[in-house]
């Protein structure tokens, strides 16, 4: 079968340029000719130096950055949606039930308790609050966030704790695609190992993942395939 038949993500010739109108309209080419696919149960790691456009590609796959041209094919509830041309409502539906994004930083809502921040993606998808919180608790426990912190909003937590809350929130969902932007950046060895385990579990469940990881050791542990982003350098 061709990759397009089974892939969860199928990107073809995607291109992104920023036009900076406040700087005299200069054009900043970011990437062009981006083409790769990701199958279920596979983790593709994007490699390349800082500024090569790794995060931009992740944001294009999430529909956060718009593409100038090309196609971002996402398998969403059995059909393929092209996020490069999708309506806002469609993008939101894809995010709700297909693509999760674990960013480097937690964009926390003030006043919401950590346990609810983590449980929210399940509640949005219809799970009962008590069950969602129980699953959130399990994940927080695995990621070594002590129970006494669960009822507090994460805004006051350390950088590493916030990142682990963010990871719990990202991994709790049962979405078939996960995008990981430096998920282990500010974690200690023990917590990095937990993240590696979580990624392995997601693979066994058939989740397709695209990750940016600078740590070589982690990259070797999670990558099934490496896509070199420098080959998409904009001309």
């Amino acid at each position: 079968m061709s990759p397009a038949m089974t892939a969860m993500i199928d990107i073809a010739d995607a291109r992104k340029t920023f036009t900076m109108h406040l700087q005299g309209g200069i054009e900043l080419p970011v990437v062009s000719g981006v083409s790769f696919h990701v199958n279920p149960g596979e983790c593709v790691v994007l490699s390349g130096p800082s500024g090569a456009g790794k995060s931009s590609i992740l944001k294009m796959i999430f529909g956060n950055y718009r593409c100038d041209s090309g196609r971002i094919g996402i398998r969403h509830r059995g059909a393929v949606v092209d996020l490069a041309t999708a309506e806002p409502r469609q993008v939101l539906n894809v995010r709700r039930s297909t693509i999760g994004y674990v960013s480097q930083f937690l964009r926390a809502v003030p006043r919401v308790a950590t346990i609810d921040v983590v449980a929210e993606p399940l509640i949005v998808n219809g799970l009962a609050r008590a069950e969602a919180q129980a699953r959130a608790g399990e994940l927080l426990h695995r990621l070594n966030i002590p129970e006494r912190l669960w009822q507090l909003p994460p805004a006051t937590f350390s950088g590493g704790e916030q990142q682990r809350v963010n990871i719990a929130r990202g991994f709790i969902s049962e979405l078939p695609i996960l995008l990981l932007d430096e998920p282990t950046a500010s974690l200690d060895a023990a917590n990095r190992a937990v993240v590696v385990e979580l990624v392995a579990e997601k693979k066994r469940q058939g989740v397709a993942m695209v990750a940016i990881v600078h740590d070589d050791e982690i990259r070797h542990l999670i990558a099934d395939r490496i896509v070199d982003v420098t080959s998409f350098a904009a001309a």
Partner: protein
Amino acid sequence: MADHDMLENVEPLLVAKSLSKSYGRIAACRDVSFSLYPGEVLAIVGESGSGKSTLLQMLSGQLTPSGGEVSYRMRDGITRDLATLGEAERRFLYRTDWGYVHQDPAQGLRMAVSAGANVGERLMAVGWNHYGRIRDTASDWLTRVEIDIARIDDAPRTYSGGMRQRLQIARNLVTEPRLVFMDEPTGGLDVSVQARLLDLVRSLVAELHLAVIIVTHDLAVARLLSHRVMVMKGGRVIETGLTDQVLDDPREPYTQLLVSSILPP
């Protein structure tokens, strides 16, 4: 899941077609078209004079457009042109299916009657007549907007700005509207009070599956509350899209200027 299918297949709640408003030779609003779906939060952003308030007034039936039309899917499922509604139907919409949160709570509340009466009044307007039930429902709503029940018999003129705004929200939501218009709802409030109000609005909107059209000049408010934004300038919509797309990847020179003018947190 059932509610997803609903989200994906449902018809729009409100549709604006080529809305325009001119005052003599001055065009305050030109050729605005969009559809709003149930549960969707749309932010209209732009600076003073961009036409966003004129647009909100036309959408909420308070101002007659010079051109174009607004249609709304009524509770019976039939979509109607607002201009063809009779007075009784229009009043019914305002009292039940729509809410309108003003920037100045004094415009949306009766400042001299009790908080409980402010909330209860809207229920009485739709035919509730059992005093005990009205008072229970009013108390319930005061609690939901985090107003101490001990203050139920006090008039809002004795309330702080933040409390007044929360009371105005309770008064609007008590009839379970499907669409709420908000005009700079955090405009006159201190920053800390703003954060609390936004947080409250955000959770109520999600819980009640409300559609909201919110006018704001504050992009942080748009980011926190809305799914989609329309950027207005000189009476026109110059850019529109998913909120995070428009704010993280703005295309138009004016939108880039607005985004770059936000002070870092």
